[in-house]
């Protein structure tokens, strides 16, 4: 069993008891963290493991939310309504990802990022214009429906379903990273020209990674729509796209758990400092500045770096240490 999997099991075990201590930590808050955490994992798949900066991730989160929400409002009563609407949301996000990614990967670096930004603004515009998205009002009062006969309307049931879906999503991302495909992605990130010279069509790998990332972001968006029974323009806004960048960088880009830590931090600050109003943005901004100035690898990234450095030093010390008790005694003065 890998270390990642062990840590993940401990995390899930801890999260299982949350509904029993509502005084300590509020389950709805944890569900929000899980949704954003998964969203950030999806983003990290692209930034951390493929080396692409996207400003379109809110478009995936939001379009999945809208599709799932709109379908639930119409067919939520059907016994298979929830899984069908959920999957339709994920498929919609992957499709939007295919369209945006397919256009953007023709360019590199900042131009790539700008194209994703422009195209995601079109998605925002459509969300305002369409009638089925509710325009300025968004979709409200989305029914949660039921999953295999399990009524999701109570928060506790929804909590466990959310935790289960989160685990599936997280392990899916972890598998992509640690797969034959993930290995080539890493090669493309490290040295694209070299990967090409070895015979890999790097654009194809980038596009598949983009669609997978969009799909997982949509998975988080569909889940979020069900948890909060609400989808709003904020979900497709540029603000959300930049927030996920922030979460990923704070937690540690290119690490498996970093995005979760970053999401917990940002959502936590927004939640617990809600009383100070707009100043939350200032606090998060300051934390971000401190982060990029002093520990650029993010929380998890710095931790892993320190640990690696320490083990390297231990190895070196062992190698340098002379055989025991053979050091020559000091000459008497």
């Amino acid at each position, binding site marked *: 069993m890998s270390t990642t999997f062990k840590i993940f099991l401990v995390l899930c075990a801890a999260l299982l008891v949350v509904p029993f201590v509502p005084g300590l930590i509020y389950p709805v808050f944890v569900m929000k963290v899980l949704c954003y955490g998964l969203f950030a994992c999806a983003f990290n798949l692209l930034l951390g493991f493929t080396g692409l900066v996207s400003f379109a991730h809110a478009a995936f989160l939001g379009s999945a939310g809208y599709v799932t929400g709109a379908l639930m409002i119409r067919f939520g009563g059907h016994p298979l309504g929830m899984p069908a609407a959920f999957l339709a949301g994920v498929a919609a996000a992957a499709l939007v990802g295919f369209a945006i990614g397919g256009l953007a990967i023709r360019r590199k670096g900042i131009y790539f990022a700008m194209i994703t930004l422009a195209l995601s603004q079109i998605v925002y515009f459509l969300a305002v214009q369409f009638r089925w998205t509710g325009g300025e009002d968004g979709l409200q009062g989305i029914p949660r429906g039921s999953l295999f006969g399990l009524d999701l309307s109570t928060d506790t049931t929804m909590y466990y379903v959310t935790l289960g879906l989160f685990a599936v999503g997280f392990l899916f991302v972890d*598998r*992509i990273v*640690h*797969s*034959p*495909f*993930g*290995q*080539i992605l*890493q*090669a493309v*990130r*490290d*040295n694209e*020209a*070299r*990967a*090409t*010279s*070895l*015979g*890999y*069509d*790097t654009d*194809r*790998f980038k596009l*598949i990674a983009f669609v*997978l990332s969009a799909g997982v972001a949509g998975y988080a968006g569909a889940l979020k729509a069900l948890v909060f029974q609400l989808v709003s323009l904020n979900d497709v806004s540029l603000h959300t796209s930049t927030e996920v960048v922030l979460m990923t960088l704070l937690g540690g880009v290119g690490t498996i758990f970093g995005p979760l830590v970053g999401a917990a931090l940002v959502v936590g600050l927004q939640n617990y400092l809600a009383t100070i109003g707009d100043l939350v943005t200032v606090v998060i901004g300051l934390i971000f500045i401190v982060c990029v100035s002093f520990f650029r690898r993010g929380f998890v990234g710095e931790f892993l770096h320190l640990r690696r450095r320490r083990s390297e030093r231990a190895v070196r010390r062992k190698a340098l240490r002379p055989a025991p008790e053979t050091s020559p005694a000091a000459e008497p003065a």
Partner: protein
Amino acid sequence: MSDCALETEGLTKMFGGFTAVRDVALQVKRHTIHALIGPNGAGKTTVFNLLTKVHRPTGGRILYEGTDITADTPATIARRGIVRSFQISATFPHMSVRDNVRVALQRRLGTQYQFWRSIRSLSVLNERAMELLSEVGLADYAEANAADLSYGRKRTLEIATTLALDPPLLLLDEPTQGMALEDVDRIKQLIRKIAQGRTILMVEHNMSVVSDLCHTITVLQRGEILAQGSYGEVSNDPAVKSAYLGGGHA
């Protein structure tokens, strides 16, 4: 079929109004080491970039084993068996030395798009990867990060990675560029070793490397072929001498 592995006919490249390469007819014989030399600005790198598909030729054709590959993409020619090296060392810095080689081996498995499979499915390649690393003398560094290797070792790793593809034709871009003397000797021996049963075309500045290794030498000047032949023939050619020494302008 001719005895050429790689051939160009009337290869021409213009950048705007400037002709960088004009009507180059190159014949690289199978199982030989062929060098492309010439003073700065002669068009060596442009020819190299045309062969490796970085640039599209303005005119002419490129044939590999008789097949026209002029319109291929860089990834396609690699799959045909033409693998290039780079002027600066080209490794995957954040991967282990072994994984660098394994990335190249992986294409043979055909699982490169399988994102649902475990990475453990690649373990079957470890043995071959270690074999290749021993062959070039890097087995002791298998677990190290490629970024932590010295410059000479990075270039060695690059060669091991290239060998993993077992390519019939190697295109080397200044393989000894920026190397210390003892490293140059090591790379020279390595090139001689890997040339067994392969065709190699290299762009190289270091004349000791060219004279020791290469069977045929093509000298370029101002984008055109100035001379062609063995080192002895080429080095005694008056046109080549004047091109390198500046001739009457010196």
